[in-house]
């Protein structure tokens, strides 16, 4: 983890609600992988106080792209302080040929870098948009991603979709995360004989004040202990997470 000043090189409004920022990092940047994020600060002001989590939707060498709401104002040439990469990358399963991504009540942006990586490895990608995620402008997504819409925690042909997937990665923001991940895991267990390690992954996104494992604010309860989302996450195997009612 390092702190670097980066430059916003381009601001593209990709939909009425979203903009994408192309950001150039310095030569010491070691690269960021799917699942990892930066803690960003764009202002000298102390309000907002804590850094914002910025998960790239794309990264190529020293350049990254992040997606932000149009409610925020960014300018080309603007400097950004980035702390990161925070967390561990998401590992695509060996020999995986199909990947199911699920966004529940959340933008799927934090899944896009993983989707692009999977597509580059000829892995078929489908994305389920549930609840508020349905308002995401799907025309900004790569054509190769099959989009499925659903209500609540279910979608059409759910069992078949889950049987199709070699790996599932889901994102749901607090406070929906535990309830949704629990419901998803229960559904998966009905469909699959065995839920192996690394098959069903959930992104946990608690606030991370430090991003270094120092402040102890982002612990996620696991079977037999606790792990820091900023060090061991934010992606965790759902079968290892301690959830009420599991």
């Amino acid at each position, binding site marked *: 983890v390092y702190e670097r000043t980066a430059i916003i090189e381009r601001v593209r409004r990709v939909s009425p609600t979203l903009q994408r920022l192309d950001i150039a990092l310095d030569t010491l940047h070691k690269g960021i992988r799917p699942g990892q994020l930066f803690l960003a600060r764009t202002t000298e002001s*102390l309000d907002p*106080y804590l850094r914002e989590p910025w998960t790239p939707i794309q990264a190529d060498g020293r350049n990254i792209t992040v997606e932000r709401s149009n409610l925020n104002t960014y300018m080309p040439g603007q400097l950004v302080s980035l702390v990161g990469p925070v967390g561990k990358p998401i590992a695509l399963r060996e020999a995986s040929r199909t990947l199911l991504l699920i966004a529940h009540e959340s933008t799927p942006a934090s899944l896009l870098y993983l989707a692009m990586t999977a597509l580059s490895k000829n892995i078929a990608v489908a994305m389920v948009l549930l609840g508020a995620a349905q308002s995401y402008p799907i025309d900004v997504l790569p054509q190769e991603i099959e989009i499925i819409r659903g209500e609540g925690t279910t979608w059409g042909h759910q069992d078949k979709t889950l049987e199709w997937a070699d790996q599932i990665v889901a994102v749901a923001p607090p406070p929906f995360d535990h309830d949704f991940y629990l419901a998803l895991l229960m559904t998966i267990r009905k469909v699959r004989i065995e839920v192996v390690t690394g098959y069903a992954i959930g992104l946990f996104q608690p606030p991370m004040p430090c991003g270094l494992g120092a402040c102890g604010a982002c612990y996620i309860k696991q079977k037999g202990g606790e792990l820091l989302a900023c060090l061991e996450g934010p992606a965790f195997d759902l079968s290892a997470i301690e959830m009420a009612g599991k």
Partner: protein
Amino acid sequence: MIEIASGKQSLHIANPVIGAAGIFGFAGEYGSLIDLAKLGAIVTNPVTYQPRRSAAGTRVVPLDSGVLIHTGLPNPGVHKLYREQAMRWKNSPTLIIVHIIGATPEEIANCAEVLEGREGVAAIELGLNDEIVPREVRATISGVKAKTQLPVLVRLPLYFAAHLATAAEDGGADALVIASPPRGTARDPISGQLIGGRIYGPWLKPLALRAVGQVARRTQLPVIGAGGIHNPADARDFIEAGAVAVQIDSIAWVRPEMVEIIARNLGGSEVTRVAGALPDEWRPGQGETAALRAQLLASPRTLLPPDNLPK
């Protein structure tokens, strides 16, 4: 060197800037972002005798120019923590002060006993609960002092610091840290619930600064100022108010590099001339640094060796 604890076992630090408890982890977590050797010491996250798990539910609530944190003070317990951190503490580029807390004076004293004589542990900082009364302050500190020869710094609650300082001195404290972040309550915008926890932000500084001034006038103990420090000028205000050193907290989350800037500034190793000057262009006593050292010299709580005197 600056004397920040003045008991039987005194404690000297090379830089008056210390990393506060609850911010910098248990040892070198910030080592990749900050040159920890620039700090006078680091105070660890709070440690208890028995292991503690993290708090359930919301732990972080954003505030206007600040934040409320309620971690539950997770830690593996003092025995396991020492086993895990012994080598890192021993090899730490800066002094390690272990912050201990507990539900009872006995638990706190037992915690201190475990740390007694351990290599790499320079001192103990005692965290007192916010509702403590003077009698309990004396009992807790004397209980700890009976179990350890280590210097004992006592961090007092902000709103009662002046009231409790004399009791802490009577109990045998070697230094006072003024003050712990106060507790507050705020509504979590995500869950909609009211959450209690410690609050951090620049607006704490005037409160802490006043408390430092009050305590410094009432006791002969070295006072370490803490609360709302976000730049070198903030830190210098605490020195002017009577502190011999300062503790830096949540600015490390906001702008990690500022921790080092403050340390370099107060430690006299910051080049204070126009930007672009190189470190070897600095000499002791140059620019603002000289004024700071003169200020430190004027304070009866500060000891500086003759070779560090401004020229």
